[in-house]
C-alpha cells in the first residue's frame, strides 16, 4: 500500500500542476470571465437571494420565504396581465420582424454586392442613437399637429389617425427598435448558404419555392433562430417603447419590476418578478444556445 502511494505521488502532483496551470486560452478568457462573473452572474444571484427575502425588507440571505412568489402567482394579482402583454408583444415583434428583415438579409447576402457594406452600416447606425431619442422622434411624427398630422392637414386632408398611446404603437416601436437584432443574425445565417448548392439545384430544375424551402431556409435556420430568440428576449424586457410611445396605456413586465424597485420600495417582490423573467428567458436562451455551433456561424467568411 505504502509503496503504491509513494510511487504514485510525484505523478499525481505533476498532473495536478498541469491541471492547475491554466492553458493560454483560459488565461485570455480570465478577464472576461471575472467581469461577467461579478457583473452578470452575481447580480442574478442577488435577485434570486432577494426573491426569497421577507417582502418589503432589505434582508438579503437572512430570511427565507416564498411569499413573494405567492403574491405573483395569486389569482388576485394582475401581474400576469403585464407578463401576457410582454409575451404577446414579443411574439408579434418576432413574427413581423422575420417578415420585414428576410428580404433585406437576402439582399445583403445575394443582391446588393458592393453596396452591401454601406447598407449594413446604415442599418447598424441607429444602434448608436439612444432608443429614447428615436422613439421620441416617432412621437413627434404621430402626435397631433405633428409631422404626419400637420402634413396631411396642409394637404387639405382631415389629418392623421390618433395612434399614439395605444398598444398598437407600442408594438410598432418594438419592431422598429429591434430590427437590427433580427437583421444581422439572419444575414449571418443566409451567408452560410453555399451559392453553388443553390445554383446546382436550379440547374437540376428546382423551382424557386422548392429551393427556398429545401435549401435556403434550412441552411440559414441557425441564424434566423438566433435573430428570433434575440428579438424575443429583448422585446420581453423592453420598457421604453411602452413608456414613450404607449404612454403607459399598457404596463409591461419590466415596468412592473421597475415599479416594485422604485416607487413601492418592495425589492423582494421586484426580485421575484425579475427571477420569473430571468428563468423564462434563461431557459429559452440556454436551450437554443446549447444546439448552436458558434465557430461555424461566426467563422465562415
Amino acid at each position, binding site marked *: 500500500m505504502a509503496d503504491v502511494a509513494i510511487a504514485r505521488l510525484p505523478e499525481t502532483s505533476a498532473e495536478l500542476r498541469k491541471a492547475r496551470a491554466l492553458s493560454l486560452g483560459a488565461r485570455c478568457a480570465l478577464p472576461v470571465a471575472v467581469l461577467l462573473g461579478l457583473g452578470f452572474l452575481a447580480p442574478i444571484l442577488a435577485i434570486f437571494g432577494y426573491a426569497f427575502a421577507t417582502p418589503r425588507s432589505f434582508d438579503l440571505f437572512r430570511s427565507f420565504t416564498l411569499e413573494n412568489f405567492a403574491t405573483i402567482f395569486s389569482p388576485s394579482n394582475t401581474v400576469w396581465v403585464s407578463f401576457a402583454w410582454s409575451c404577446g408583444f414579443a411574439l408579434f415583434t418576432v413574427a413581423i420582424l422575420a417578415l420585414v428583415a428576410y428580404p433585406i438579409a437576402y439582399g445583403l447576402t445575394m443582391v*446588393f454586392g458592393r453596396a452591401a457594406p454601406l447598407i449594413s452600416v446604415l442599418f447598424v447606425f441607429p*444602434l448608436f*442613437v439612444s432608443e429614447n431619442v428615436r422613439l421620441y*422622434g416617432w412621437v413627434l411624427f404621430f402626435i397631433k399637429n405633428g409631422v404626419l398630422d400637420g402634413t396631411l392637414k396642409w394637404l387639405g386632408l382631415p389629418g392623421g389617425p390618433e395612434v399614439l398611446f395605444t398598444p398598437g404603437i407600442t408594438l410598432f416601436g418594438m419592431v422598429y427598435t429591434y430590427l437590427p437584432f433580427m437583421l444581422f443574425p439572419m444575414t449571418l445565417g443566409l451567408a452560410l448558404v453555399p451559392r453553388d448548392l443553390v445554383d446546382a439545384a436550379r440547374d437540376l430544375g428546382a423551382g424557386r419555392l422548392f429551393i427556398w424551402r429545401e435549401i435556403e431556409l434550412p441552411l440559414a435556420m441557425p441564424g434566423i433562430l438566433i435573430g428570433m430568440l434575440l428579438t424575443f428576449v429583448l422585446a420581453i*424586457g423592453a420598457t421604453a417603447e411602452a413608456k414613450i410611445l404607449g404612454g403607459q396605456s399598457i404596463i409591461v413586465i419590466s415596468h412592473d419590476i421597475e415599479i416594485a424597485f422604485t416607487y413601492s420600495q418592495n425589492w423582494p417582490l421586484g426580485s421575484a418578478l425579475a427571477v420569473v423573467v430571468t428563468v423564462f428567458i434563461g431557459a429559452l436562451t440556454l436551450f437554443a444556445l446549447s444546439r448552436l455551433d458558434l465557430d461555424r456561424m461566426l467563422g465562415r467568411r
Partner: protein
Amino acid sequence: MSDRAKRRSNAFIWSWTAFVLVVVYLPIVCGALASFNKSRYFGFPIKVYSTEWWQKTLDSIEIGMLVRNSILIALLVTAISVVIATFGALAFARYDWRGRRLYQKLILLPIFFPQPVLGLALLLSFSALGIQTSWMTAVFAHLVWIVPVVTLVIAIQVYGFDPSLEEAAFDLGCSRLQVFREVTLPLLWPGIWSGMLFAFLLSWSNFPLSLYTAGADSTIPKWLYAKMVAGYTPMVPALGTMATLGAASLLLAGGVIGMLARRRRLA
C-alpha cells in the same frame, strides 16, 4: 428562374430595403426638424425656423456636464473593454482549450438579457454591497454588456487570422510578447478598431443601464428621457440631434481612418 423574374425580385428587394431605411431614419429627421422650431411647442409645418434652441443647448452649463459625463464614461468603457475583449476574442476564436464551448455561450448571455432587468439587478447588488451608484458604477454596468459585444466583433476578425503566422514568428525566435506586438496585434487591428468604435458608440447611446446605475450623475440619454416624460423643451430634440450627429461624425471619421490605415498597410 427566368431573368425577368429575377429582375423583378431584385427590384422588390431594393425598394423594400430603401423603404425600411426611410422608416428607420424618419424619426431622427423628425427630431432634427423639431429642434429648429422657434416656438416652444412643436407644430408642423414649422412656421418659423430658428437655431435659438441649438444655441441655448450649447450654452447650457447643465448640458455641458451631461456631455462631459457621457464622454468620460464612453472613453473609459472603450479603453477597458478593448483590452479585455481582445484577449477574450483570442480565447473565443483562436485557442483550443477545455472550457471554450462553455465560455463562448457564457459570453452571449448578457447580450441575450434585457438591459432594464440587468440594470435593476446591478443596482440591487450595488446597494446590497453598500456601493454608492455614480458614473463609475455606470462604467461597470456598461462593461458587462459592451465587453461581450466587442469580443464578438473582434472574434470575427480572429477567425480570419492564420495561426501559422504566429508560429512562424515563434520559430524565428520571437518572444511571446514580441509575437503579440508584431504579429497578432497588427493582424487583429481592423477588428480591434471596429470594436473600439462599437464600445464608444454603444456606451454613448446607452439608456437603460445608465438610468439605473448612474445614480445622481446624469448622461445625455438619461437627461433626455427625464425631459421627455416631464418638461418638454425644444432642447430635447436639439440635444438628441446633436448626440446623433456626434455619433455619425465619429463613425464616419472612424471608417475613414480605418480605410486609410488599411490602404497604407497595403501600399
